[in-house]
């Protein structure tokens, strides 16, 4: 099949799933099976693309031109392919999980929920295949709007408030800052194409303004949750857990950092950033976000809030990787997209499983639960260790490459920041497991093993296993991503 057919098929399948959800709103089994088939097919299509293209950058498929020299266009390149694989692969797992969660929890409006969910996946794949900043921005906004109904799903005053923060920050930063940056780039270069080595080098932009433009991008990409625009992520935790799992550990936040990497690598260019030193300030902001949000995470008793702040911290690893402006940093950032996604989705799905089984949301109530739900808590433990970055789990490699990147940039302080962050991760993740397994609670009403429904514990167990697999495949992913550094293997 033609590559363009595959690209469009990968975006069309989730879009169709969105409509079948709305059409078969009443027949729940049929509806969920069709969506499951669509998820499988989407992943298969993305895998086909991966096998067909490999890690080269494919030519552009131009749909039509919107502004002079700015078309809606798609192509495949290693970073986008990695993001596409992660998003579509984890959609399958999350869909299974979401069926279990939504039914086990008696949530309402299933059709709208799964419909918007599929729409969000289509938008995430659109982001992955975008071959210029304009197309990416278009899908970036579609992703924001299609996830709003998911965040506000419960319709409670708390959900409405949370969703308001969510939409306000994401739409606000993207329209006020990112759009300005995009148009400025266009005015300065007369193109918005992603090109290896960047497009700004030969532009009319004066060197003093390069950091300003970078700031507009860095803060404008609100989905990357760089402080002080991180508030939307904890606010979005009012959404049902499958949403938090896929969208706020994988699709939405990863779309943010993916955009950040794309901007760093293909708009500015790593070498250009390194030569001008324009990204040095961003490094410090990212470092601050890493440490500060870890500290905030320690103080959260609500499990999902704690995970949310942990995500804020981990996302800034990737921003840091870009801001280091070294090849190893960029590679580490790219790898972290995959490893963090796998680890964090495990944690979120475990949190949801605990909620479905016991309706507990606060960590202080979870004493002794590990004995009641051993599989869930073991999966949680594996995910946590991967986030912390201990071998033999995937997370250790991305942290390793980021540290090498920091060393290459002669930023010893950044190595220290990454280490401190690991320690903080230990401090806020391990007590949850310790409390679950090693402390007994006389008031625990459950005796014996009482797991959540199988649809709720199997997916996190699978992704926990995935964390382990990633440890052994990290080298492959690094080789795969190598072209984005400009080094020809």
């Amino acid at each position: 099949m033609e590559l363009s057919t595959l690209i469009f098929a990968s975006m069309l399948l989730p879009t169709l799933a969105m409509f079948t959800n709305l059409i078969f709103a009443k027949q729940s089994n049929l509806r969920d099976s069709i969506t499951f088939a669509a998820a499988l097919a989407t992943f298969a299509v993305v895998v086909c693309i991966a096998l067909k293209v490999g890690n080269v950058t494919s030519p552009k498929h131009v749909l039509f031109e919107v502004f002079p020299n700015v078309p809606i266009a798609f192509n495949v390149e290693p970073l986008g392919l990695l993001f596409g694989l992660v998003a579509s692969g984890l959609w399958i797992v999350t869909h299974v999980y979401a069926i279990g969660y939504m039914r086990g929890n008696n949530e309402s409006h299933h059709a709208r929920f799964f419909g918007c969910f599929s729409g969000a996946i289509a938008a995430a794949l659109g982001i992955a295949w975008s071959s210029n900043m304009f197309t990416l921005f278009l899908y970036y906004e579609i992703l924001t709007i299609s996830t709003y109904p998911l965040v506000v799903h419960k319709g409670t005053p708390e959900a409405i408030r949370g969703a308001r923060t969510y939409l306000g920050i994401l739409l606000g930063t993207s329209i006020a800052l990112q759009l300005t940056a995009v148009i400025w780039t266009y005015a300065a270069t007369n193109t918005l194409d992603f090109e290896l080595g960047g497009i700004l080098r030969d532009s009319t932009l004066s060197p003093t303004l390069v950091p300003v433009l970078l700031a507009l991008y860095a803060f404008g990409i609100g989905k990357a949750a760089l402080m002080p625009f991180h508030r939307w992520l904890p606010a979005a935790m009012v959404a049902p857990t499958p949403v938090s799992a896929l969208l706020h550990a994988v699709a939405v936040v990863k779309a943010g950092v993916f955009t950040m990497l794309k901007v760093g690598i293909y708009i500015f260019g790593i070498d250009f950033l390194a030569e001008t030193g324009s990204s040095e300030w961003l490094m410090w902001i990212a470092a601050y976000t890493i440490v500060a949000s870890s500290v905030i995470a320690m103080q959260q008793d609500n499990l999902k809030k704690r995970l949310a702040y942990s995500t804020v911290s981990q996302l800034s690893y990737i921003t840091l990787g870009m801001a280091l402006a070294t090849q190893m940093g960029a590679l580490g950032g790219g790898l972290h997209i995959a490893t963090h996604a796998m680890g964090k989705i495990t944690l979120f799905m475990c949190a949801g499983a605990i909620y479905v089984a016991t309706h507990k949301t606060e960590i202080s109530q979870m004493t002794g639960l590990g004995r009641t739900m051993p599989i869930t808590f073991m999966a949680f433990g594996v995910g946590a260790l991967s986030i912390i970055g201990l071998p033999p789990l995937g997370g250790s490699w991305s942290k390793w490459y980021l540290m090498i990147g920091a060393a290459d940039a002669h930023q010893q302080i950044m190595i220290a920041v990454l280490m401190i962050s690991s320690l903080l991760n230990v401090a806020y993740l391990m007590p949850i497991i310790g409390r679950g397994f090693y402390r007994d609670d006389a008031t625990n009403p459950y005796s014996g093993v009482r797991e959540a429904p199988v649809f709720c514990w199997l997916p996190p167990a699978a992704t926990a296993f995935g964390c382990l697999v990633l440890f052994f495949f990290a080298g492959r992913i690094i080789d795969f991503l190598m072209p984005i550094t400009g080094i020809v293997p």
Partner: protein
Amino acid sequence: MATASEVHHTALTLTDHLPILQILIPFCTAPLIVFIGSKSLAWPMAFISSLLSLIIATTLLISVSDGSYISYKLGGWVPPVGIEYRVDATNAFILFLIAATATVVLPFALKSVNHEVPKRNHTLFYACFMLCITGLMGVVITGDAFNVFVFLEISSLSTYVLVSQGSHRDKRALTAAYNYLIMGTIGATFFVIGIGFLYMTTGTLNMADMADRLRGQGDNRTVQAAFAFIVVGMGLKAAMYPLHLWLPAAYKFAPSAVTTLLAATATKVAIYVIIRFMFTVFQPDYVFNTNILTWIIGPLAIFAMFAASLIAVFQTNFKRMLAYSSIAQIGYMMLGVAMFSTTGLTATLVHMFNHGITKAALFMGVGALMLRIGTTFYDRISGMGRAMPLTGAAIVIGGLSLIGVPGTAGFISKWMLVQAAFEQHLWWLALIIVASSLLAVIYVWRLVEVLYLQKPNSDVTLKEAPMLIVAPMWVAAIACLYFGLDTRFILDAAATAAEGLMAGSAGMAEFSTATSIAATDH
């Protein structure tokens, strides 16, 4: 005097007479509706007539889209003695907007007007509707300054009548129409005084001729006074901040179909006249030297963008909120003019069109809610997004376009405006433009929450609006999405028009070249 060759030119082929047919068809339909006097025939006649207008407008637009122009001499009298209709890229574009809006609004009006206007007034209502369209198109198509005033009065007088038709539902429509009448008349009077001054100085009423004779008259006090009177007079009609006071009440109390037509076309036509006079009659250089753009129009536009948006945020009535948002959007259009560049003018023209279709979709949504609930206060329309899914979705699409979310028409105009700011290295202005659109996020999202997240009122008919209302609304909503992606038609037409305008009267006589743009582009 018609020479032999011109007589030959105005031979009786239909295509040669398109410019006059554009005006004559709706103009003759209006009295015909009254004479026939049948309530059931009034609507079909109006619809057929507006459909014909749309076909003519489309043909005209296609034939001038290459940058050429069509000059039609009324009765074969050569200008400047006779009246000339002149169609170029700029006004063909606006003609198309007016005709298209009328054609989309009329099917919507069938049900909506039945509901909001008493049956006995229907023939007169549709007659006025046709007269209003005639006036608006006449203002746009004519190349004669006094003729602009004549058509302006035709459209204004019929508009006052149309607005007052809301009195069946709410008596305050009468005061709204009266207010509009007073303000509109002051505006028109100022405008005609301006024309009088120009006639005094130049002795001609033909715009192209006037432009020629005004050359080098920059220091003439009479010309300066004329300029001031024309800008203020048309500013009143365009609801340019702070001359907007008539607009919210007129929009709110007029029947929904009338509001839709006015919001999509009337203010745009006034802006067109301002642009036409500034750039074609007075010449870009003259306008630039008066500094009015930098010191008056520009700052007021920015002020409108923020002040009117802020007021819109605090409204509790959907229709009134849209009215204030219109004032803010007119600010965007004037800002594009104030930037005084080809890109800026393109942004203005594109926004005139895009905002037209956006507001058409939204006001038809208002009409649908009106039909089912009878009012558009937020506490009464709460939860209606679920009861009326099609209306709700169309309103959301219109709202997104109002914000300027990518993939919608509103985004294209915002992009052009910001790009125009960057071209002149006014990065602070770019930030102001995007910051003001954040206010739109607030007022649109407040509405979305009302429609979807609040509990529905139990005492209202929870039914989707009839297809005749929903279909035109969706035509406009889909246009919002379509023109947000496929920009070929709209950007090309607007860019051609803007280039012509920036070239001044040279752009009127023959089409400008790239070099003349470079010369006037600051």
